[in-house]
């Protein structure tokens, strides 16, 4: 067999791929990072908030070096009806330190990450679409791009939520529409001063805002708004498997959010500088595919590593951690010169021990809860509106006790259902299902390859 051209080929220059490339290159491995975009990050889009705890492990000086937009110090969650917003706001200087999150724009941020990989010694190739995996003797042996074949000891698939390469090679099955959401987002230029004033922010500090209800017209999903330095990222995400719920189209959902009375004045006079769309992962723990294959690992979105709890929406930190752990696994495998699934199984084991799969397992029941609880997007925003109206309306009529106001507001939903939904909702975000049990139950999937020593798929 011909000598492998590279130790590792990484497909996709997003947070997972570039982090893995950096860690591998620092260890002296011969690694190439390939992205189909004209530059790294030019195909990548997200809502726009990065929790940085994982980034700091690989890039300790990221705060001074990375193109971050604003440090998030203000969190807002709003339940929307057509006319009202019932909002919880938390603003605190304590939203920083090790748990700091920043708004980011992916084109500049991902370019910076790829630059770090290149500086560490990785070859970064952009503008090349990898068409297929090169399969040899039942194992992944490289990639195919056009007429060209490139071989490597291992291929790291960080090619995004669809992971077309893994699907085309039969490593993972057909996508489930309930495991994916479609996102659409506008970037609106407003100016740095205007944003700080309108959102009540100190210089360099930002607001992260999520919306539930009217913006998606009751579809499972929600809206988001992140303040960047001189722009805001504003958009919606809705589960693809729920598109049948009403006939409102995805682009129209963005417009609904923009014209909502609580949003419209904040973006008035702004200029659209980009409109885009992307997939988001909604399936949680149960949508994580087999991560370890003969000669290949799945990373980041391709590995199904996304987590939406309603109040925190994560992907990039999970991707970065998966990139680091994948790279460390490959370094160890390289030392053994064994890239079989059995040798690489440590990747899945370490992800299961890390926050990545632990957090996904903790919130395992949340996606199902949302699918089963339409009221979260329809009746509950209305309940909040009715309750708030009865609290804050003064019209000369006789005041009524708050308990009665709340009871009246809850009547259309029904007390029994309210308690049941509340109980199930709290359970779904409270990790009542045993995390260890979830991880143990999944062992057949993420660890099973370890038992097939030297076997082929």
């Amino acid at each position, binding site marked *: 067999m011909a000598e492998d051209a590279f130790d590792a080929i990484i497909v996709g220059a997003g947070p997972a791929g570039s982090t893995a490339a950096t860690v591998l290159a620092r260890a002296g491995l011969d690694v190439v990072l390939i992205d189909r975009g*004209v*530059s790294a990050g030019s*195909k*990548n*889009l997200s809502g726009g908030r990065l929790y940085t705890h994982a980034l700091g492990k690989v890039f300790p000086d990221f705060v001074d070096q990375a193109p971050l937009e604003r440090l998030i110090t203000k969190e807002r969650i709003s339940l929307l009806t057509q006319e009202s917003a019932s909002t919880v706001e938390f603003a605190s200087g304590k939203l920083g330190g090790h748990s700091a999150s920043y708004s980011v724009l992916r084109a500049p941020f991902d370019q910076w990450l790829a630059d770090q990989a290149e500086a560490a010694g990785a070859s970064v190739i952009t503008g090349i679409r990898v068409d297929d995996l090169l399969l040899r003797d039942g194992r992944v042996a490289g990639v195919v791009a056009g007429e060209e074949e490139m071989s490597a000891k291992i291929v790291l698939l960080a090619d995004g939520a669809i992971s077309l390469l893994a699907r085309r090679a039969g490593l993972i099955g057909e996508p489930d*529409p309930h495991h994916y959401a479609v996102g659409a987002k506008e970037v609106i230029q407003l100016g740095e001063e205007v944003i700080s004033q309108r959102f009540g922010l100190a210089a360099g500090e930002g607001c992260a805002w999520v919306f539930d209800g009217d913006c998606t017209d009751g579809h499972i999903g929600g809206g988001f708004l992140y303040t960047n330095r001189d722009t805001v990222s504003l958009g919606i995400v809705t589960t693809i498997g729920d598109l049948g719920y009403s006939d409102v*189209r*995805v682009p129209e959902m963005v417009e609904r959010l923009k014209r909502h009375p609580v949003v419209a004045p904040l973006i008035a006079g702004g200029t659209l500088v*980009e409109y*885009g769309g992307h997939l988001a992962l909604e399936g949680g723990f149960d949508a994580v595919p087999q991560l370890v294959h003969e000669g290949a690992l799945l990373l980041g979105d391709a590995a199904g590593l996304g987590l939406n709890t309603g109040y925190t929406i994560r992907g990039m930190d999970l991707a970065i951690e998966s990139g680091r752990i994948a790279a460390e696994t490959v370094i160890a495998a390289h030392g053994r010169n064994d890239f079989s699934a059995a040798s690489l199984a440590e990747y899945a084991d370490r992800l299961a021990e890390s926050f990545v799969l632990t957090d996904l397992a903790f919130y395992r029941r949340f996606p199902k809860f949302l699918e089963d609880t339409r009221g979260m997007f329809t009746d509950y925003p209305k309940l909040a509106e009715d309750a708030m109206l009865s609290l804050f309306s003064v019209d000369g009529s006789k005041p009524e006790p708050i308990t009665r106001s709340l009871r009246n507001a809850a009547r259309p939903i029904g007390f029994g259902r309210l308690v049941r939904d509340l109980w199930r909702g709290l359970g779904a975000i409270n990790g009542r299902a045993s995390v260890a049990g979830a991880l143990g139950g999944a062992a057949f999937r993420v660890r099973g390859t370890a038992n097939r020593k030297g076997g082929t798929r």
Partner: protein
Amino acid sequence: MSLEAKLAVDRFAVDEESAHIRLADTSDVPRETLELLVRGCPAGLYRLNDDGSLDFDYAGCFECGTCYVLAHGTALAAWHFPRGEMGIEYRRG
């Protein structure tokens, strides 16, 4: 602001030589599937005609994969990413 005007703000390198997504013969595909494509595409590139036929224009595609998830193997005969350097180029992301 119309969807066309929004897309005009974006930067695309349209591959004139090859379409990365191709429709299948949709006459046997349930109308509901076609409606979901129209509804789900964030760039609004799918159009359902009065006679029930489906139109699609790949220029302006974000390559998000929504239509792949909805209709790969039914309404879509082929779905791939555009060739290298082609397609959407996000400058903000």
